[in-house]
């Protein structure tokens, strides 16, 4: 019968269409990823790009000098590098070596001072051994980091900043080792 054949042909076409739409559902997966990639929304393939500091002022150099003192303590305390040259806005990490030469466990607290003094507000410290009291067992040695940014609003006349750390003993504080940080 003619009608029957036409019906079957129609059913075949519609079934193929339905199967194609099932495939289309899956095709949406790479399509979605592609769209996200091209438009840069919700990028699934690449890991998130590293954070770029756009505030770095490449046109300027400043010198940072590091100084270390102890006050009435038998500790060795020295910067690993005496000075570095950097651009304002750059992230900097430097380290200090500390060693307790005495026979007893002690707790020290470092205090920083800046030269010139008004540079203090332009040095943004992210991590510093001076944030915490530092217990040191007898004879213990450590390397302690300072991480900071000198912001780009530093007045133009400043081309050298000195960071001077001084350790003071904190008497009566717990000498138990810190749970985290300053252990390296």
């Amino acid at each position: 019968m003619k009608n029957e054949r036409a019906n079957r042909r129609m059913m075949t076409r519609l079934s193929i269409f339905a199967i194609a739409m099932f495939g289309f559902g899956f095709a949406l997966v790479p399509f979605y990823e592609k769209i996200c990639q091209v438009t840069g929304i919700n990028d699934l393939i690449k890991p998130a790009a590293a954070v770029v500091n756009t505030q770095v002022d490449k046109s300027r150099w400043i010198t940072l000098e590091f100084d270390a003192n102890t006050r009435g303590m038998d500790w060795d305390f020295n910067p690993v590098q005496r000075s570095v040259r950097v651009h304002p806005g750059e992230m900097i990490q430097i380290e200090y070596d500390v060693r307790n030469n005495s026979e007893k466990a002690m707790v020290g607290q470092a205090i920083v001072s800046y030269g010139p003094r008004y540079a203090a507000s332009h040095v943004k410290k992210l991590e510093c051994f001076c944030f915490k009291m530092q217990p040191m067992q007898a004879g213990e040695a450590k390397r302690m980091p300072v991480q900071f940014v000198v912001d780009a609003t530093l007045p133009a006349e400043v081309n050298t900043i000195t960071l001077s750390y001084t350790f003071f003993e904190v008497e009566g504080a717990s000498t138990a080792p810190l749970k985290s940080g300053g252990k390296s």
Partner: protein
Amino acid sequence: MYAAHTNDHGHDEHSHKPSGIMRWVQSTNHKDIGTMYLWFSFAMFLVGGAMAMIIRAELFQPGLQIVKPEFFNSMTTYHGLIMVFGAIMPAFVGFANWLIPMQIGAPDMAFPRMNNLSFWLLPPAALLLIAAQFAPGGGAGVGWTLYAPLSTQAGPAMDLTIFAIHILGMSSIMGSINIITTILNMRAPGMTLMKMPLFCWTWLITAYLLVAVMPVLAGAVTMTLTDRHFGTHFFNAAGGGDPVLYQHIFWFFGHPEVYVIAIPAFGVVSQVIPAFSRKPLFGYASMVYATASIAILSFMVWAHHMYTAGMPVEAQLYFMYATVLIAVPTGVKVFNWVATMWKGSLTFETPMLFALGFLFLFTLGGFTGLVLSIVPVDIQLHDTYYVVAHFHYVMVAGALFSAFAGIYFWLPKWTGRMYNETLGKWHFWLSLVFFNVTFFVQHFLGLAGMPRRIPDYSLQFAEFNMISSIGAFGFGLSQLLFLYIVIKTITSGEKAADRQWEGADSLEWTHLPSPAPWHSFETPPVVK
């Protein structure tokens, strides 16, 4: 003319009809299958309705009184799934089975055996959805949208739900292929496409929508299934997938799906309003084009369901404007229905009352939809009771009221008996009042910030929730009256006339007796 036909078919009207349960199990008759679809959908309507009663009982007062939160989540999930896939869609497929062959002058559907299979896939799917409640850990409380990552982490009930959706999808696709083929290939001589009753047009368009989007949903839940058990990472961010992708795929199905529900409802109303206005439908051609453009636009607006999921503002603007654009063809339809009634000889029997209830309340639901389409407003109202109120206005007062209108309208043709008009009017007015008591106050709850799908709420929402729950109980009870009316009609209704509504002019009224014989139009009528 119809007398000649009844004589033609008189001899085989009863002789070939198998008896007993096998008549239904093996049925390839479009009318029997239509009847089964309608009864099945009513049973599911009661199951989904019982779940809604549990939800409203828990929300009657603030605090947790009746059910555990996990069970509450399961109820909101399966209430949605059962009402959408078990009640409303099969109800309109039931209408399609009964009416399309009669309205286009065809003897039956194009593929009667496939028609049988489409129906008999539904009960197993329904059983899976109900069995999911008894799975270890209880029903999957993931919401009817089955969003990842919750759905990829839910208990074994989720697998039953996924299989139920696969089966329901297959049933819908087969049913749609049947409907498209029947309409395109089996029209009586002279029945051009633009002479078809609008109900057939709306189903033709709906069936295309279903063939296009049900496979996409099947794909989405298949991905969920393989993510759960076979180590894929479609939606698993840890494996390079993206849960937001699920939302995109789901709503690519989900938005056309709301028109799958609404468009056949438009078709029913487009038959009922002209019949009781005693005028032909105003702007028939524009109705066809408006329906088709709604269907096409429905593929382009899916992301308005996910403004808060994170997308660029340009995309939000596009989806907002495209969504607002749908109001234009919808407005054309509402205008045409109103214009059909303009200067008509109106009478207000129950089908007309339900059609008018549809017209008012669906339009209201359309307006709240416009409010929600606006990005900054939606970001405030997303996932609040305002959304719940909005989609119940289009789903219940839209699709369900239209289904009631259709059932009262064609019940005389289907059963050969007339329903009780007084009881029918009671059913309408009770439904109308209780519907608004239930859902109108939910707009206020949503505007005040009450989130949906949460079993408990802040004390400030107590009064409106109590009103809403009382309305819901009333609405639920009113539907038992409907069951009584239908049974009473079948068993002891008055004899209906062949053309019970003198304003109705499609072939089933003008060419066939009431009740419609088991076989009709074996010799196609000639349509002038």
